[in-house]
């Protein structure tokens, strides 16, 4: 690394950012996945996907879910501060174990990666305690979370650039299954679209365009008013076309809170001579 790049990197690591939007994202992320894990535990969701005939959830999985719920409560409450960061890191580990042992979901991999980055952000405050308005914390975890989201949208957009997705057949399969297998009733226009491979292909192409545009915006122009409608649109369509309901809100929260306008006002650092 050249000395100029090394110096720029050192300055970036020392740079501060407002704590409030990161605290809000930590609360939202914790709350979304807390709801997920409570419902998952109550309805044996992951357990039944792991083994759909078994009467009871494996005790190991229940233990992991209870651990995740405890960690997520701490993330939402934001106190005691000394426990929040270890709890966030522990949540990443527990989710990775759940992924490895029980269900290899991209959602779980996303959770683990996001939580391990979030564990490095240390805003004070939470549900019952306001974040001091002038509090500042290291900026890099926020930047890494934004870049990680950009990478996810870029990679998933790139992976979708294949003959099956572009032909509309992937969406066709999913929407036909939701209608036939789960008895979903889409609105008239969406019903007609589900039956038409041409329409499915158009939606599929728009999906890729949306994801790649969002990735580029998050890297080059992470402005909330630009990225929020796009991320909400992508995941609202995704929820109804793919029956995935928690992954989307989590990424919407990540994009919304971490593109808070206050991040654009960077505070110059004194030179380190």
């Amino acid at each position, binding site marked *: 690394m050249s000395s100029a790049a090394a110096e720029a990197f050192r300055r970036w690591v020392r740079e501060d950012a407002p704590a409030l939007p990161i605290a809000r994202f930590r609360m939202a992320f914790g709350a979304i996945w807390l709801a997920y894990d409570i419902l998952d535990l109550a309805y044996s*969701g992951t357990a039944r*996907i792991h083994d*759909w005939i078994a009467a009871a959830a494996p005790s190991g999985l229940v233990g992991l879910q209870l651990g995740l719920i405890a960690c997520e409560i701490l993330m939402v409450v934001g106190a005691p501060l000394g426990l929040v960061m270890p709890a966030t890191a522990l949540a990443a580990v527990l989710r990775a174990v759940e992924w490895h042992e029980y269900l290899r979901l991209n959602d779980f991999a996303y959770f683990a990666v996001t939580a391990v980055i979030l564990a490095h952000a240390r805003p004070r405050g939470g549900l019952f305690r306001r974040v001091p308005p002038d509090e500042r914390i290291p900026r890099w975890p926020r930047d890494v979370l934004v870049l990680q989201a950009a990478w996810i949208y870029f*990679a998933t957009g790139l992976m979708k650039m294949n003959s*099956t997705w572009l032909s509309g057949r992937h969406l066709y399969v999913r929407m036909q299954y939701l209608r036939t*297998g789960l008895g979903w009733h889409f609105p008239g226009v969406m019903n007609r679209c589900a039956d038409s491979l041409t329409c499915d292909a158009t939606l599929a192409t728009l999906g890729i365009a949306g994801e790649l545009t969002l990735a580029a915006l998050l890297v080059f122009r992470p402005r909330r008013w630009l990225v929020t409608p796009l991320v909400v649109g992508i995941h609202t369509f995704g929820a109804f076309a793919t029956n995935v309901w928690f992954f989307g809100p989590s990424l919407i929260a990540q994009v919304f809170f971490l593109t808070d306008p206050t991040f654009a006002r960077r505070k110059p650092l004194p030179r380190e001579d």
Partner: protein
Amino acid sequence: MGPLDRNPLYVAGFLLFLIVPQGHALAQQFRLGYRPFGQAPQRVTLSWDMFSTAISRCDVRWDPPLNAEGRPLARLHDSGTALEWDPVYDRVEDYMHAAEYGCVYGRPHTTATLQCFTFEGEAVKNVFRCR
């Protein structure tokens, strides 16, 4: 995290911890044959391949319903929830195995029906009697 999060070496190491596995996963997709505008990717951890692989889906039903550990199960979907947690497979063969496995919990002469939608864009129906 304390002062570690101000240490450039630690942060650089942490970034490598994030970048290396995700970069390796993307490279793995290319090694497995994925090409832009060509072959679909496969499931590779951390390559963010969600909704991009070639999948088929089947609605699996048993008539009369199975007695699965005390629960009546008329459809594979009945073991999951209406939203989010739905037991699914990606290949018709896996659904066939699930339907046959379910027969173990069925009464004699139980009929299994699979209504499948394949990534070739076809709808296929398969009916068999449990042995």
